């Protein structure tokens, strides 16, 4: 039994200092077998779809040198460990597990297959043969917030959350802070769907936000249903995970896209070269792991220029979504003036900033 607490420290600290894993290559001459485990269907047009796009990019980039496979809709729970084990046993030497709930299973199976490389998306536990990776989605949300500030008339904007976990909370806060650049007294309303993918509930949530007077909505869930709902009622919105522009040609102003391709290609190259090392990769706009699709024509040219400027500032680190002074709802300073929040503080963010009209459940 692995004691997680001893690992947590290592997970966030420097990557394990370990030479590349020898023997990670399947057999010399044979293709490197790579497997992907998805939590949803690849047809979700969101999270799992984007990971599968990354898989296809790996295939295209490496051709005969790799052979990929995937298992979709793997439930988080007792099943994940079996699927991972089957993948490792089938000779896959690089395995991507693309949901937080797979964490314990990844750690368990990785112990049994020390010369197989595992990469776990959105988790926080690492091991010599387990790396973690994630996207700085909050950077895209910050830009979305600025866009919302420019487009909203009612000073009330909406956010469809999946689960009240730090990833969502930092997104909501970044969105609010972004909007405050333009409208200092903006109000962000939040509806939790308690699912990553549930088109019915997502559409309901979008409608609930619009009923509450929001005239700009973004989503932290993966189906295009909120975009379709907003398009129907003529409300501005931003797509999530994949390019959702075609579901809201008039109203979807951009999409915050997760682009895993570059990370997958890089990791594959490292495993092929025998230089792979366990690391904690957290890429954002600068690394193009998070990408904003081209602005809709409905965004005025001057606003487009502002947004482009903001994106390049985030890329070259002259602007950070969480730069002080930032106050929480209670009015306490959480990021002092003149400083920028640390990654560790971001990853455990469990408070809303001022301007968010919601309380954290639980």
């Amino acid at each position: 039994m692995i004691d997680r607490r001893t690992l947590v420290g290592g997970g966030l600290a420097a990557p394990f200092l370990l030479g590349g894993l020898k023997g990670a290559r399947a057999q010399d001459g044979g293709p490197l077998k790579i497997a992907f485990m998805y939590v949803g269907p690849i047809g979700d047009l969101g999270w799992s779809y984007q990971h599968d796009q990354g898989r296809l990019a790996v295939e295209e980039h490496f051709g005969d040198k790799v052979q990929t496979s995937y298992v979709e809709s793997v439930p988080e729970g007792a099943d994940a460990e079996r699927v991972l084990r089957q993948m490792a046993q089938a000779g896959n030497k690089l395995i991507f597990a693309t949901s937080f709930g797979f964490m314990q299973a990844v750690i368990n199976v990785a112990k049994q297959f020390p010369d197989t490389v595992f990469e776990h998306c959105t988790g926080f536990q690492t091991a010599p043969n387990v790396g973690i990776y994630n996207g700085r989605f909050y950077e895209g949300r910050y830009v979305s917030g600025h866009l919302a500030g420019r487009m909203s008339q009612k000073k009330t904007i909406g956010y469809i959350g999946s689960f009240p976990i730090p990833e969502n909370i930092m997104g909501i806060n970044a969105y609010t802070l972004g909007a405050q650049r333009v409208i200092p007294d903006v109000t962000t309303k939040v509806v939790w769907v308690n699912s990553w993918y549930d088109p019915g509930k997502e559409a309901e949530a979008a409608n609930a936000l619009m009923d509450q007077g929001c005239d700009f909505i973004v989503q932290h869930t993966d189906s295009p249903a909120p975009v379709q709902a907003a398009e129907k009622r003529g409300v501005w919105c931003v797509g999530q995970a994949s390019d959702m522009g075609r579901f809201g040609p008039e109203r979807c102003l951009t999409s915050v896209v997760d682009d895993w391709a570059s990370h997958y290609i890089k990791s594959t190259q490292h495993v092929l070269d025998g230089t792979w090392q366990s690391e904690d990769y957290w890429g954002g706009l600068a690394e193009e792991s998070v990408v904003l699709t081209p602005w809709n024509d409905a965004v005025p040219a001057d606003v487009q220029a502002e947004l482009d400027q903001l994106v390049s500032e985030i890329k070259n680190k002259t602007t950070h979504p969480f730069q002080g002074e930032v106050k929480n709802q209670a009015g306490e300073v959480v990021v002092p003036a003149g400083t920028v929040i640390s990654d560790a503080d971001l990853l455990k963010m469990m408070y809303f900033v001022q301007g968010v009209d919601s309380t954290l459940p639980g």
Partner: protein
Amino acid sequence: MLRLTRRTNPSRSLEILAPLVAVALTLVVAAILFVALGKNPADAFAAMFWRPVQDLYGWSELGVKVAPLILCAVGLAIGFRASVWNIGAEGQIVVGAIAASWVALATGEGGFGLPGWLLPLLAGALGGMVWGAIPALLRTKANANEILVSLMLVYVGGFLLQYVVRGPMRDPMSFGFPQSPMFPDPARLPILLDTTRLHLGFALALLAALVAWLFVARSYQGFVFRLSGEAPAAAAYAGFSRAKVIWGSFLISGGLAGLAGAAEVLGPIGQLQPAVSPGYGFAAIIVAFLGRLHPIGIIAAALLMGLFYLGGEIAQMELQLPIAITGVFQGLLLFFLLGADTFVRWRLVLGGTR
């Protein structure tokens, strides 16, 4: 015109054969499907039905998968025979898992000289019983439809789980991620087979099937349950209490479902997570009917369903078949089973009215 007339004497052997016919028809249609998808049916069947169980480890994984299915289905079948429709085993699983987790975290190092897993396991069964008691109470006191009440309580149980993993039971070391701490080792169920994940829950499932069989086939109470379902008027005339049958059905099926949930978290999962069961409580309804509501049949049916799940994963990995294939298999099987059943009990007659 076609119409169905009831057979006066349905053949007993045909009744037993019907599931086999259904399985055979499922395989035939599946083979056609595989060809249509451009796959060699022999490869596909090998991936789905042979590869998952080609070694002992595979069998142990099948055991892990079927344990909750058997536990739930055996309990549900007792109620179904008595015409008590508990559709909410999924919720009882979840509440059982919550109760077991709570006790495991509170007492997990053991104590009272008992193994650390015993109290959590019992708490799980109790939690499932409590959740099952609600529809029983509302049925007997307010005549509320137990199908609807038990089904709706699934969602209530789901929200309860979402609440506890985010609130009172969240691991303070998990960076706000919704999950409980890992249970202490003594609270984890003993492993039956070294180097596998096959846990005590599987043995309990087989034991439950045996006890259920003795109960239904050999005990006086079992007779009362059956009579109450098959001939309610006669049962009432004989003075048997319908309320007792309803309560008994829900407490047994709820308790076993709670036990299944407890065994999942104390066994393979090792902590309380927002997702405990991928729908075992609902799949168990299919398993119960596929197994003819008979404990031995249920074990066979659970093994078959479990194989569909495991084989579906391998078919995805090796043949790039879509995951929908698992659902299609289950659907086909249920369809043909219901069809075969119909023809065992009814006859197709050509011609007009009688």
